């Protein structure tokens, strides 16, 4: 009767927290779990995440949630009604349209702008930065000087110039914002690349005969991603504000699209007597921007590699 000590069955939590993972999958899941624990410990960050999830839900179900059409109003019968009027929870605007319905549908535009800008700008920045940092020499010099040129202009002014040249509209606004928001990502990616390019594992990969292309794509870029995600999330608020700014100046989404910035611009004329027309979309922008800022803050703490494993 030998006592064979059986390892006690691990709880799921212990399996995830194990410091001797048995497989790659376990290691990855473990890391993700740690990140999530750090993230969820931050109440504000969770609140931010909640706001963003709510935004996504609202955007998806806007058709079902909105009590009225966002573009067709009742000019003769329901113009500039105050909040709380019957059937119009947040009041109506100068075309007699329900502000609540417009806000709900406007969330789609906001989300569209954010997602497209992130999809366009982040990869460009990542690629430019990683290539620049890894290659060094004149490639680095050329790419970084181009980045510097973009940095030399205030973002909104540059976006304005692009939109003015390409013509107003939501697509052009997205392109303009994307074009003007990649340079910081390139800088971050380059900095991260510089810290890893001379490390042993890169040397090992190189010894094994990997091409520079493969090294950058498979071994350098992944190291830059986490700081990039944090930066992009923190920038989301700025992107929303830029998009709203362009809309406010009449260069973003065009009527009758319920873009929040354009709604504020339309409501500005009534600010003295009908405050709600401009205020409601302003609150919406504020809440969503705040949500992204909180989320970004939480992500920064959670994804910080120096914190990991603690």
């Amino acid at each position, binding site marked *: 009767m030998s006592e064979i000590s059986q390892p006690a069955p691990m709880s799921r939590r212990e399996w995830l927290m194990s410091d001797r993972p048995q497989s790659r999958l376990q290691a990855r899941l473990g890391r993700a779990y740690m990140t999530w624990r750090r993230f969820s410990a931050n109440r504000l960050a969770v609140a931010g995440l909640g706001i963003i999830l709510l935004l996504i839900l609202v955007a998806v179900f806007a058709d079902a949630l909105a009590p009225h059409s966002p*573009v*067709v*109003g009742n*000019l*003769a019968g329901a*113009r*500039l009604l105050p909040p709380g009027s019957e059937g119009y929870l947040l009041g109506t605007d*100068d*075309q*007699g349209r329900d502000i609540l319905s417009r806000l709900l549908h406007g969330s789609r535009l906001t989300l569209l702008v954010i997602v497209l800008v992130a999809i366009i700008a982040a990869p460009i920045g990542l690629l430019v930065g990683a290539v620049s940092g890894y290659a060094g020499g004149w490639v680095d010099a050329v790419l970084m000087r181009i980045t510097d040129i973009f940095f030399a202009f205030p973002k909104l002014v540059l976006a304005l110039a692009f939109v003015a040249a390409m013509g*107003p509209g939501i697509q052009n606004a997205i392109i303009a914002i994307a074009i003007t928001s990649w340079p910081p990502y390139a800088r971050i990616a380059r900095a991260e690349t510089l810290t890893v390019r001379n490390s042993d594992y890169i040397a090992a990969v190189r010894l094994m005969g990997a091409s520079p292309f493969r090294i950058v794509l498979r071994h350098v870029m992944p190291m830059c991603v986490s700081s990039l995600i944090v930066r992009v999330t923190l920038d989301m608020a700025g992107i929303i504000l830029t998009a709203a700014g362009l809309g406010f100046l*009449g260069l973003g989404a*065009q*009527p*009758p699209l319920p873009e929040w910035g354009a709604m504020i611009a339309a409501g500005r*004329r*009534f*600010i*003295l*007597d*009908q405050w709600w027309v401009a205020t409601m979309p302003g609150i919406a922008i504020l809440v969503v921007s705040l949500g992204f800022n909180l989320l970004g803050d939480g992500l920064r703490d959670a994804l910080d590699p120096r914190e990991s494993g603690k």
Partner: protein
Amino acid sequence: MMMHSLNKHARMLTAGAALSLLLMAGAPAFAETPADTLVEGWAIDDIITMDPGEAFELSTAEVTANTYSYLVRLDLNDTSKVVGDLAESWTVSDDGLTYTFKLKPGLKFASGNPVTAEDVAYSFERVVKLDKSPAFILTQFGLTGDNVTEKAKAADETTFVFTVDKAYAPSFVLNCLTATVGSVVDKKVVLEHVKAVTPSEEYKYDNDFGNEWLKTGYAGSGAFTMREWRANEVVVMERNDNYYGEKAPLARVIYRHMKESSGQRLALEAGDIDVARNLEPGDFDAVAKNGDLKTTSAPKGTLYYFSLNQKNQNLAKPEVAEAFKYLVDYDAIGSTLIKGIGEIHQTFLPKGVLGELDENPYKLDVAKAKELLAKAGLADGFSVTMDVRNTQPITGIAESIQQTLAQANIKMEIIPGDGKQTLTKYRARTHDIYIGQWGQDYFDPNSNAETFTVNPDNSDEGKVKTLAWRNAWDVPKEWTEQSKAALLEKDAAKRAEMYKDLQKKVLANSPFVIIFQQTEVAGYRGNLKGFKLGPSFDTNYVFNVSKE
């Protein structure tokens, strides 16, 4: 310890200072305007020049009208007539070609120089020779740089003779002379300031007729003198003590540049300005309800319309044009977006002009419009764009039209731009639909009749660039002829009938959808007396205004 208490003290001091600053900023500023000065808040960003021979902008016209004299002025009691200003009397020769004006005796310019027929002739000469934007109002009578000294000349000290090339309706000739371009300038003063110019192909004369100096200078004889104009800031006018008519009660009138309606309203409520000129419906209502303030309004000769470019195949179909006239919610627009600042008006002659026709047959009728579209083979609708200037109420109306068009399956995309962009596109005939305003150039039915019904050459190279041309509308020949015949009709009543008939035709069959006629509004302090808006942009006189 010492340090600590000092810090505390300093902190309290700073806090106190900051607090008092806040209080000072928050306290209402009781800035009353001086008793002998009228201050108007008005958007005057359109002023480019103060030279009456060159200016063709709305704001300048008002200043010119208050600071210069003409031969004849519009009769404010009956705008289909004119009254003498510098002219005491006038006669028209039997062949209808020669107009002889007799000046009032003892007239003086603000400079003290006497007003003579010589000055009148010189004023005509410089307008024609400079040939700036408003010159056509005079040159349409056959004046050219070569013959102007013959056709507009002084017979003696007080007699001015004006010869036209055709026997026009006298009302037309006289109405044109009430335009600001007919201002009489002080020849002596202007001659002191002329600048030498090297003659060239386009400009054959060796001097600029004082054009550069008059941009900011003044050489007139009106009830007020123009003392100063600073672009986008202020225009200052002062009482002219040499004025031959009744002297103005106020010593000074100041136009302050204020662009936004809400800003003007706040300044008016606080007493910083006496008159607010660019109030939008909401602010106008609020001013009307305020016991300290009063409001006034007057219909203007400016029409708001949209027009369909006939180069667009869909828009060129007559049924489509008619359908568009049924797809505007006139009632709703009239009771909301333009409430108080406009009146629904569908014919091309504004109220107050000879031959006006007060008929508004069109109403929002989607079923009827759909029927018409089906007849044109467009029952499923189509897509079209509209160039919209980024100002109210135009944007609001465009959005309303966008909604009503959608009910008939017409998908309209709004292309916004500033006034320059949309107008440039319009003038190049590259738009689909253009929405905008049209103000008559001079107070005569011909101004609008010409632009809406005359298009002699519909090619892109056409020289007569009327609104009909801009929309590539090939106007039926008889209509153009009728419009030209009305110009030569001497009997005012018959002339009016001809224009009425023409308006009915255009109303029924044209690419123009005229929506409303502008009503100019103003809010003013209760202590003002005699403040009135005139029937046109160049008849808003301030020389009767006084303060209690």
